[in-house]
């Protein structure tokens, strides 16, 4: 029995072609599925927030129906963003040292601060100012535990007079304006973690933060499309087609920019063909064929570009039902494509030796901390949290107020 188990484990040890440094042989990839999920989830946060700020800062009225859902999505995913990082540490109990004694030349050291800033100063505050009036109202009309919960969320501030609401609105607006560069910072910095590694020709690249920001926006908007459609389906509510059209228009343009920048990155790599290009080329052709050529490029970029692009031209001629399906397919494909992109960056960057003489094969395990189950659980967790948030903060039973402007009825 033990032998059988050992054999299974032995099969999981990656094998190599060519020469890899001995220390690379045992631990590749040192950063696996957890670190794939980390930039993925963080990117979804940044993207969903940008989506929400289209309403708030850029005044895109058509997107109002998804404003709160986008904010809650960003919040739910942000709560889960540090988990994969935390789990993969050799000493998770020392994680607070990153914030308490940060080493300021390290791209990773800033994460704690950017994260805390984004969570506490931007998202939480903005959500609170958005919901303050609702909390007050809901706490009055809801009995029992739920009512107590809403009362707790008011933190004792029950003033819903007109000037107070105006101030809420103003502060919310300022926070949203501050939030946009913060979201860029949050995810640009994640890109920099990889882009700053000059030892690795796959990662060390000035375009990396920009690629990460753009793909974050794409994936975040796609997630909002996905969530909005699923939520409407679950609640048996009609979709606001205008809202969906506008959302997908932004998704399309973000995807165009993202694809252009990533294409530029590849053109630059191929043209300059620097040291290490050969091994990168081999890897892209052989080792990452399914996730790169098929997943990221074809299914995650080209097909959605085609679907969304054709709808930009022929929107009026395509019936609602078909349009909805095309939007849903594009959103879901983009979500998978961006996940594949994170995989290609993180795993791809570790499947060749820094001696540039060999490549490795990575087989992901099923169980264990870095396995499929753990990955799936970590991906599901934000959706579970979001479901709870939707139940509490987007309840159908409670009177909904226009979230973005002081309500005239409350003027005293």
């Amino acid at each position: 029995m033990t032998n059988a188990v050992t054999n299974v484990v032995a099969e999981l040890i990656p094998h190599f072609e060519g020469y890899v440094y001995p220390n690379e042989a045992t631990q590749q990839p040192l950063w696996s599925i957890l670190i794939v999920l980390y930039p993925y989830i963080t990117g979804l946060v940044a993207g969903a927030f940008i989506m929400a700020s289209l309403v708030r800062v850029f005044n895109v009225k058509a997107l109002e129906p998804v404003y709160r859902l986008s904010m809650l999505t960003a919040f739910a995913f942000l709560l889960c963003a540090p988990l994969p990082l935390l789990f993969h540490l050799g000493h998770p109990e020392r994680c607070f040292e990153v914030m308490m004694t940060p080493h300021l030349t390290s791209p990773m050291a800033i994460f704690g601060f950017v994260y805390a800033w984004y969570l506490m100063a931007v998202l939480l505050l903005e959500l609170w100012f958005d919901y303050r009036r609702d909390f007050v109202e809901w706490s009055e009309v809801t009995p029992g535990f739920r009512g107590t919960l809403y009362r707790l969320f008011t933190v004792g501030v029950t003033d819903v007079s007109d000037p107070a609401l105006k101030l809420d609105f103003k502060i919310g607006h300022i926070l949203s304006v501050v939030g946009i560069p913060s979201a860029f910072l949050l995810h640009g910095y994640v890109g920099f973690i990889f882009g700053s590694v000059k030892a690795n020709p796959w990662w060390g690249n000035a375009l990396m933060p920009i690629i990460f920001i753009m793909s974050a926006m794409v994936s975040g908007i796609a997630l909002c499309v996905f969530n909005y459609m699923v939520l409407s389906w679950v609640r048996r509510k009609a979709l606001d087609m205008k809202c969906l059209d506008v959302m997908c228009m932004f998704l399309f343009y973000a995807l165009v920019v993202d694809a252009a920048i990533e294409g530029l990155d590849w053109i630059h790599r191929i043209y300059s063909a620097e040291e290490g290009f050969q091994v990168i080329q081999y890897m892209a052709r052989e080792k990452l064929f399914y996730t790169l050529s098929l997943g990221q490029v074809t299914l995650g970029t080209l097909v959605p570009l085609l679907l969304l692009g054709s709808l930009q031209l022929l929107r009026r001629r395509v019936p609602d039902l078909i349009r909805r399906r095309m939007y849903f397919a594009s959103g879901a494909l983009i979500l998978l494509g961006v996940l594949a992109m994170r995989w290609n960056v993180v795993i791809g960057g570790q499947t060749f030796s820094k001696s540039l003489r060999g490549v490795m094969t990575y087989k992901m395990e099923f169980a264990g901390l870095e396995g499929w189950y753990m990955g799936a659980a970590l991906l599901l967790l934000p959706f579970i949290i979001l479901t709870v948030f939707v139940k509490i903060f987007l309840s159908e039973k409670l009177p909904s107020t226009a979230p973005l402007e002081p309500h005239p009825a409350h003027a005293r």
Partner: protein
Amino acid sequence: MKSWLSRRNLLSRLSIAAAGLLAASAARSAKAAVQKVFASSGAPRGYDPAMHKWRMAIDANRCIGCGLCAEACKKENHVPEGQYFRTWIERYIIAKPKPGSGEARGETLVDSPSGGMHGFPESIVPNAEIQHSFFVPKLCNLCEHSPCVQVCPVGATFDAPDGTVLIDPKYCIGCGFCIQACPYGCRFLSPVTKTAEKCTLCYHRITRGLKPACVEVCPTQARVFGDLMNPVADDPLQQFYQNNLVQALKPHLGTKPRVFYAGIDKEVR
């Protein structure tokens, strides 16, 4: 009016809390700076790192690939079993070009079975077809601009004033960023301590006047070790610098390695 005040109160309390967090962070930074001076490095009391500049140099012409250095290092530093090495030896075999190929050289084969710890098996390229064959001992390059030090999020790995690059195992959080950042594959995450490990030049030995274990056992003096601040008579390190044109590994990365190599080929990375 009351509720206005309560909101203002709330906001000011929030700001006080944020300021408190920041102040705590600054205090901890100061504490860490102090800690770093007394970091757990294994040096004896009274050792003054400012009075030394330790260096190692490799004369690849002398290396016979016996692997004693890698073995000694494993034992001396309790390096975990398996493919974990603070130092290892690579064998380079550069084949002759195929006749009529118009090439100057044939293919380059590199291997390091078990880090070269037990020597090397017979080459798969027949002797008659080998143009060059040589061994290259590898270790931490003790970079002046160490990318590993730069990226450590907590400052657990640091440049000591005596020219070594050390890791405080009590402080390392095991994130692996330094391992990714090292271009030379010199670091690994110990399965035992769950922290990063690397060559320290046998810090516990050199700070007591001994040589690193690998230097001690090398039968051919391929590994040369010394103190630039306190040269001895006929200092082997000074002689090495005097007698050889040297190279550093991957100089284009700007890491400025302080370990110099003599007698290596362009194929060595």
